[in-house]
């Protein structure tokens, strides 16, 4: 057992002296992931928030044909740009991105309007242009509002109570709290934490296996009177240490960034103080032996350092997939889902950020399954080191 500690200490010492290992353990978690996260957040904030205040610009062809309508548009904050287009010109203006939305008022608009017949209006836009979505929606709302006003006026003029044509009235009640609204944006937090976590142990796992073989120091190591599985356990533990370090660094950095970015301005509150940060670290810890073992197994199977690098690069993406899936599908934690490593940690992190209570059963499942699978994988890694093919 003492040998496990010896190997562990040697691997840690060597890795602390290796710039690349240290950089991947700390650099990604401390610098790259918070920066990227801040960029994503501020992008989301920009998209969601201040655009609503910006006036919509609408090109209206032949404003003189419907002065009341145009007056209504202006009244509701739409900047009307008078133009004179025919159908081809309107299409061209949209396609060449000179206009986002064009409202055409046909010649017969006024006569049909006066006759009490449906008065035609044509709205040109490009539905594949996502930036125009908001303008189109606003324009349609304002136009529908105008239609409603006219309907009411006409009903009143005929002596009918306007409420007879409004049998139901819908009131939107939004029960989302600021914290729950921010979660969509914060769903990416767990992704960044896990990427840092895996990056932290990646080079150590490669160095200790494929690297050791490639540099020719493995064969001599196997001649010492230590069981081979003990050698690999020491290496896995060293990878665990670096992953823990990377985890702590990245959660701390993310916590600082989140509080700096100031989501409160968005109407979102974030529960990411030191206590939450600590709990997030604790809920991710059971994942570490699992990750370290699986990276060690894969690196031990590969023929060269480069090959190991390629495969492990891909492996870091695997735990991300269940998280993305849970995030996109809006999944709620269930006992079955809590038995999936990485997805269960994602639920724990999300619940902590939302400041919601978590069932102890779910916590137990997440910790138990992750640790259990980690132990199984470590044992597999130990067996793998008994194979002769290991020498390559």
């Amino acid at each position, binding site marked *: 057992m003492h040998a496990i500690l010896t190997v562990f200490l040697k691997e840690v010492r060597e890795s602390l002296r290796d710039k690349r290992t240290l950089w991947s353990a700390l650099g990604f978690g401390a610098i790259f992931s918070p920066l990227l996260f801040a960029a994503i957040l501020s992008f989301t904030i920009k998209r969601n928030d201040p655009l609503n205040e910006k006036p919509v610009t609408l090109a209206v062809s032949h404003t003189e044909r419907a002065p009341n309508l145009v007056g209504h548009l202006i009244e509701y904050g739409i900047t009307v740009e008078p133009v004179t287009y025919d159908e081809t010109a309107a299409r061209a203006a949209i396609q060449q991105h000179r206009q986002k939305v064009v409202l055409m008022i046909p010649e017969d608009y006024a006569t049909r309007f006066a006759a009490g017949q449906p008065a035609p209006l044509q709205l040109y836009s490009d539905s594949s242009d996502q930036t125009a979505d908001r303008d189109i929606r606003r324009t349609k709302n304002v136009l529908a509002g105008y239609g409603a006003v006219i309907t009411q006026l006409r009903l009143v003029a005929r002596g009918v109570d306007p409420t007879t044509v409004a049998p139901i009235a819908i009131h939107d009640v939004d029960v989302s709290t600021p914290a729950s609204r921010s979660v969509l944006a914060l769903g990416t937090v767990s992704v960044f934490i896990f990427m840092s976590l895996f990056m932290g142990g990646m080079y150590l796992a490669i160095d200790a296996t494929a690297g050791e073989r490639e540099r020719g120091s493995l064969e001599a190591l196997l001649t010492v*009177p230590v069981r081979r599985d003990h050698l690999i356990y020491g290496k896995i533990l060293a990878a665990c240490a670096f992953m823990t370090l990377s985890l702590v660094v990245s959660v701390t950095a993310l916590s600082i960034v989140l509080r700096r970015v100031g989501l409160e301005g968005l109407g979102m509150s974030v529960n990411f103080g030191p206590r939450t940060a600590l709990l997030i670290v604790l809920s991710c810890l059971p994942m570490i032996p699992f990750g370290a073992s699986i990276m060690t197994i894969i690196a031990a199977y590969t023929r060269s350092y480069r090959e190991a690098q390629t495969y492990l690069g891909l492996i870091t993406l695997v735990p991300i997939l269940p998280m993305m899936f849970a995030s996109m599908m809006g999944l709620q934690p269930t006992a079955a889902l809590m038995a999936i490593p990485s997805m269960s940690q994602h639920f724990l992190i999300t619940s902590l950020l939302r400041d919601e209570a978590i069932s102890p059963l779910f916590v137990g499942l997440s910790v138990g399954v992750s640790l259990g699978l980690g132990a199984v994988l470590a044992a597999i890694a130990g067996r793998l080191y008994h194979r002769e093919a290991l020498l390559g």
Partner: protein
Amino acid sequence: MIEVNGLSKRFGAIEAVRDVSLRATDGRITGLLGPNGAGKSTTLRILYTVIRPDSGDALIDGTSIVHAPLEARRHIGVLPHSAGVYQHLTARENILYYGELHGMSRADRESRADELIELLEMKDFATRRAKKLSQGQKMKTALARALIHRPRNVLLDEPTNGLDVMAVRNLRSLLQRLREQGHCVLFSSHVMQEVAALCDDIVVIARGNVVASGSPDALRERLGQTDLEEAFVQLIGTAEGLE
């Protein structure tokens, strides 16, 4: 003392070692001579317990490599074919790491490391990181690492490969010193002159078989050749793969 009895090892369709038996006694240098691919490395790898034989056994100071490999490893010091050292550790740290893995106490391994640094004239670079060492210096580090636990038996796989003339001379004198101290030294080589110059006993191996063994004089006598080189060519059937 190393006693090898009928070792065989097969890798897929290739029979790397066939019924190899030999003896390497204390206080003598035994050379394993043969062309490349003859099975020298495989034999040594089995002896230093990195791979298991399909059949046969070997006793190292009476300990079976098949039944008690961990115990057998305590009695051997190994310089494998690719004797890489840890780049980010100093030469001395590399040596001490093996002492610790052999279960030596701190005081013991430190004094032994100093002794070896003295013996192998490593003082100038002992505290330098291994990645900055020359090939010869790395070899010395690997050798000191192999000797840290004072093994009675020393196994070296093509130890002179890639070394310059000075380093080869140093290695020779070290092996001779180990012999004087009563160690059992077994090394493999495909360089005939080297084996002829250094060895008390020679085991000639070809195509996985031991084709002859004995002292250089005995071999010459047996084959009726005054020239050792002619004797080897006669034994192996060809000069190919020998130097």
